[in-house]
């Protein structure tokens, strides 16, 4: 079996990453799942979380995804990301500020719709903070 496969990370604005990798861990809606070459075909929703790209047994790159979809076939893994950021590029202080602002928005929301929207943004921001803080794990599966 081949020991690597194609990973494509695309956002609506651009193609972020297209390269050959050994393993990725995708934040699926029902839990993280690792993808190795020859994975069974899966289409999954993505929850806000960390996408980890592995090479040579260690994490090479980590991205924060705000949501999206993953399509996995035997020789390819395509991530349609909603907002993808390289974790090293995220500024922790500004995320903290974002979380604080959104908490305020949730409490001060005028109607149901507005509150639901603010809560959704808050969940994404909190997940982002969590991704920044989480240690970059090296083992995985």
């Amino acid at each position: 079996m081949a020991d690597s496969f194609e990973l494509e990370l695309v956002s609506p604005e651009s193609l972020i990453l297209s390269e050959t990798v050994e393993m990725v861990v995708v934040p699926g809606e029902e839990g993280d799942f690792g993808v190795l070459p020859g994975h069974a075909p899966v289409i999954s929703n993505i929850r806000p979380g960390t996408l980890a790209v592995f090479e040579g047994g260690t994490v090479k790159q980590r991205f924060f995804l705000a949501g999206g979809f993953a399509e996995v076939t035997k020789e390819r893994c395509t991530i349609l990301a909603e907002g993808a950021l390289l974790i090293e590029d995220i500024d922790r202080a500004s995320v903290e500020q974002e979380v604080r602002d959104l908490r305020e928005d949730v409490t001060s929301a005028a109607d149901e719709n507005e509150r639901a929207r603010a809560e959704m943004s808050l969940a994404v921001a909190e997940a982002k903070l969590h991704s920044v803080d989480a240690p970059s794990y090296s083992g995985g599966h």
Partner: protein
Amino acid sequence: MASLKDLRNRIASVKSTRRITSAMKMVAAAKLRRAQEHAEAARPYAERMERMLSSLAATAAANPESAPPMLGGTGKDDTHLLVLISSDRGLCGGFNSYLIRDVNRRITQLEGAGKTVKLIVVGRKGVSAMRREAGSRLITGYEDLAKPMPAFDQASTVAEQITSMFEAGEFDVCTVIYNKFVSALEQVVTPLQLIPFSSGASAEASESSDGATYEFEPDEEEILAALLPRNLAVQVYRSMLESFASEQGARMTAMDNATRNAGDMIDSLSLVYNRTRQAAITSELIEIISGAEAL
């Protein structure tokens, strides 16, 4: 005959017009290049989205009963929603007028067949034209959405409205009408049907996925429920980008023509100016000579 002073003023004013049109042409050319880059950068996402959706649609087609209405349609086609993508700025040749003419023809045709037509318009030029001509059919007009470039968030705003209108059962068929970018010289008014989803690429997609059957997580219906509105936003975004590139192309061509026309006009005005000036000199000379002869 116009006096020399008048002619001088005309020439000066045409010259300054030419300066403006040629500057606008340069700006449009620069924007066109950026718009094309953006349109190309957005392509991979749309293509992969389409591939994923097509393979899902193929599975869903197996049991049309449970397929979500956004994929298969409501089963009726009584109310048509037309989403018109025009520009915020004018001075771009026939860009908006072709689009509006096409939409008006569609409206007449659909209403002639006894359908109801609703409109969502993006772009100030289209909004003002449709407010005038289509009146109450206009549901929403978005202005200044594409500033400085169409962004995905703005396209999602439009798509969200389409989604919520569809869920409220306010229309059956949704079509986007925009100017497709062919080249800087050519833009084609193109309809793109969003709902029901018409998968043109489904045959090709099932080939590329090796006929593999996918597992779905959490399940097919939930993914479709999330993917379909998403696809809507992507398609709207794509047509907005295309339309933006077309607008710049159309403006570049229009301003190029205007610059050339101004040049021609300056040439012919200068000719008239020189002739008039020479005629004035000649007549002055004749006066002097005949005055001298009379002595």
